[in-house]
């Protein structure tokens, strides 16, 4: 067989080779090396500021264009449609209904009246039109347009310049940012798997945990750059220490990367299959993460035992837990599962708040798969977020796990500027338990029957 090289092919090969070399050198110099040492050139901050200026201009332009053409500028889910008065209780409202129509004397005001149904009907219809819970599981509402089609208003018809700008953005995001980020992500994850497996071969000891910490930090920093995440950490003096539990509000799987690139944590979770499984298995070799098999998760005692064993060993890293148990759209904090507050370890609360202007970080797991979600993240402008480390909290005397969980939740909500909700995040998948309905029935029957008993006594 004769090998025949076309000179053109040859040239192409050389060109490709050169561009690859340049590409990787640039990557190495500007991203991977700074990632290893944990320094930043400030490129990302500059990028963020420029973007904000452009968004501002685009929104102004959009509003002006809309006015000129007498368009109804319409933002999806922009704000609530109805005014709700959440403060009034069932009892107050029903009493008010009766007061307005009392054709009887006042002391019979606690008996059933046909008009009581108005209260329930109105409340029910209100929740059909607008409710506190389901909207927390959908994308957050935005004030200005960020040149992403997913958050579009009807911008197309407004101005040619805007459309061009949007097209340019599209080209940059998918043509330059996405490939760059995908390369970085693969580098980061690949290095993590490779190096942690390597460290796993070392004997346990100080050397191993030192190296493991460095490797974890480095790889997470590369991943942070793969998402162009611009993170501001506040109050770092409160960073979680060994023997503690770090609890944070949960918006997306990225939360893990964001926290872990600033400090090492022992992760808790279920062993997944596929790529996730490979990563998990190699990570656990280098450093004691707490992974559970699928069959073990159901066993609450076992989970609690392994967690408290881990916490008691002061040489082990603080545990990272998201007690909401599901992703919420970063406008609120929902009920914390009490398990992690039952152990009795010091809790280090952390509040994470994303800036939705650059791309929505919320993972709507019922709508997008993991890969799809990550691609959306990598084709967004950036992930901008703030992390607050709150002072450590521990359970007070006479306080049960639920009360403690609520206290921690309130603190996180306050710091992150999130709405503190009592609802269970599990409602995303499951139906309301009947106990909540019972609660309403109890309130109502207390009004009717509570006083009837009094009367029968007199």
């Amino acid at each position, binding site marked *: 067989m004769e090998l025949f090289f076309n000179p053109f092919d040859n040239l192409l090969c050389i060109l490709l080779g050169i561009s690859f070399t340049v590409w990787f050198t640039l990557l190495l110099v500007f991203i991977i090396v700074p990632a290893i040492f944990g320094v930043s050139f400030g490129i990302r901050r500059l990028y963020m500021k420029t973007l904000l200026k452009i968004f501002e201009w685009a929104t102004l332009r959009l509003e002006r264009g809309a006015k000129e053409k007498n368009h*109804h500028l319409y933002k999806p889910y922009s704000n609530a449609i109805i005014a709700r008065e959440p403060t009034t209780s069932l009892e107050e409202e029903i009493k008010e209904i009766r007061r307005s129509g009392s054709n009887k004397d006042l002391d019979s005001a606690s008996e059933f009246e046909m008009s*009581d149904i108005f209260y329930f009907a*109105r409340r029910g219809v209100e929740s*059909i039109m607008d409710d506190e819970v389901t909207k927390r599981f959908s994308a957050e509402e935005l004030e200005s347009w960020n040149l992403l089609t997913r958050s579009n208003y009807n911008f197309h018809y407004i101005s040619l310049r805007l459309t061009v700008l949007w097209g340019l953005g599209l080209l940059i995001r998918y043509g330059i940012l996405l490939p760059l980020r995908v390369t970085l992500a693969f580098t980061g994850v690949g290095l993590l798997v490779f190096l942690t497996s390597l460290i796993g071969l070392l004997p346990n000891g100080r050397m191993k945990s030192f190296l493991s910490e460095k490797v974890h930090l480095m790889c997470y920093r590369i991943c942070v750059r793969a998402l162009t995440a611009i993170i501001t950490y506040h109050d770092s003096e409160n960073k979680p220490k060994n023997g503690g539990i770090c609890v944070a509000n949960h918006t997306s799987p990225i939360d893990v990367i964001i926290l872990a690139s600033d400090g090492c944590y022992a992760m808790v979770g279920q062993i997944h299959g596929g790529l996730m499984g490979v990563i998990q298995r190699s990570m656990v070799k280098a450093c004691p993460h707490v992974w559970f098999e699928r069959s073990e998760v159901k066993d609450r005692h076992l989970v609690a035992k392994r967690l408290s064993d881990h916490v008691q060993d002061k040489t082990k890293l603080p545990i990272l837990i998201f007690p909401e148990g599901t992703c919420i759209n970063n406008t609120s904090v929902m009920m914390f599962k009490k398990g992690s507050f039952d152990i009795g370890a010091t809790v280090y609360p952390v509040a994470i708040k994303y800036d939705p202007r650059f791309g929505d970080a919320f993972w709507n797991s019922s709508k997008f798969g993991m890969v799809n979600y990550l691609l959306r993240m990598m084709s967004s402008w950036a992930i901008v977020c703030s992390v607050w480390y709150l002072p450590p909290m521990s359970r007070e005397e006479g306080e049960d796990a639920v009360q403690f969980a609520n206290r921690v939740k309130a603190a996180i909500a306050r710091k992150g500027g999130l709405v503190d909700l009592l609802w269970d995040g599990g409602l995303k998948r499951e139906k309301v338990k009947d106990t909540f309905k019972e609660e309403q029935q109890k309130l109502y029957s207390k009004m*009717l029957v509570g006083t009837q008993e009094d009367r029968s006594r007199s």
Partner: protein
Amino acid sequence: MGSSSSSLNNVPDGQQLMQETGFSAAHLLRLYERFKFLDKDNRGHLRSEDFEAVPELSENPIGDRIVGAFFLPGQETVDFSSFVRVLAHFRPTEKNRTRAGAQPDPANSRNRKLKFAFRLYDQDRDGKISRIELLQVLREMLGMQVTEEQLQSIADRAIQEADLDKDDAISFDEFRKSLEKVNIDHKMSIRFLE
């Protein structure tokens, strides 16, 4: 309303619904967003499961009845028009009902609001709230918190008070009379934001 905007065209029967229900274009658009949001699988209509996915509604003791009110007899889906028509009952009553093209008895009138509430009781739609129907509603609203005797006595009293022709049931006229002094508009209206 100057902005009969292009986006209202995306709402099915938008113009007609505006006329019929009195909702503004902006409200219809919002409601349509909400409708599409509840319609998770993009079928173009809602099923009772879609309503049940709203947690606050499943917490409502008579949630099932409220959902039922959206469905025409024998139908299992609700399209956007019927959705809006039901919600229109909860618009505040207009003081001066002289608007051109307004219907003689719009959904937000006192009469229609009362009718809506009456239907929540009268599930077999025979025009009467029977004793059994009343007991069922009471059981739903009070749950297992009261004894059967208590329930019976509450129902007895309610029927006694409203039942004028002594047929042991409450007709719509009797229902309306017994609620004569109640400010229905205030209680059966939702404040819509502009």
